[in-house]
């Protein structure tokens, strides 16, 4: 069960404020710089995708973020009100023919930096987990 739930408008400033709150908590829990970077990156990409591609900046649609920040792992679920998408339809941004296209890197970065990433069947809710590495 995810402990905190925030509903924001399709607005980047609201997304930034939520991200700020989450990062304060994450860094307060003692996560390393590398882990905090990964969490910031993944949450930012998830929020931008939800606002921009999911809700298409529609002010009547919201983004729901559930999160659970524990000392050993962070979990997020980010849901928008768009129709969703199929991961298999997203072009590989690292393919030679797509390298110079300015799009499609958010999802690959989330997958690269988080430990677990999945979507609901409709493709409009992203769930992701980052585990903390024990510091020696």
């Amino acid at each position, binding site marked *: 069960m995810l402990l905190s739930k925030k509903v924001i408008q399709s607005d*980047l*400033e609201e*997304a*930034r404020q939520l*991200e*700020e*709150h989450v*990062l*304060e908590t994450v*860094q307060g829990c003692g996560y390393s*710089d*590398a882990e*905090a*970077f990964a969490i*910031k*990156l993944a949450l*930012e*990409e998830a*929020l*931008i995708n939800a606002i921009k591609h999911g809700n298409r900046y529609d002010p009547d649609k919201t983004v729901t973020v559930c999160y659970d920040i524990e000392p050993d792992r962070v979990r997020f679920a980010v849901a928008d009100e768009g129709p969703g998408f199929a991961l298999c339809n997203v072009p590989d*941004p*690292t393919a030679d023919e797509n*390298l*110079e*296209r*300015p*799009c*499609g*890197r*958010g999802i*690959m*970065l989330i997958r*690269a930096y988080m430990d677990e990433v999945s979507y609901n069947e409709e493709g409009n809710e992203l769930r992701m987990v980052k585990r903390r590495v024990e510091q020696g």
Partner: protein
Amino acid sequence: MTDFAHEGLDLQVQQSGSATVVAMRGSLGMIDVESVQEQLRRLVGQPEAVVVLDMSDLHFIGADGLDMLLVSRGLSRVQHGQIRLVNPSGEIRRILELTRLDKVFGIYASVGDALGA
């Protein structure tokens, strides 16, 4: 420790001969991308402009920031100009490598190297 919760972006723009050096300090987050894009658009909009982006003190960039770099590169090429990246360290370099954008942009060890290229 980098303050990822609150850190913003500071741009210092300097002319160096015929090139423009832009030192990027802090985090290039979702809120900053549009204004940075606008500043870069003005710089690369000049014919044959060479714009050197010093990333030595840049701590964060996301996909929108990378897209912004690619759009600026496209505008620059129309004007027969160039964008050169300098010393992206740590996670910034890793992101450029993961996305293979290190193959697209010229990356230099120092501002001096970029200016002399």
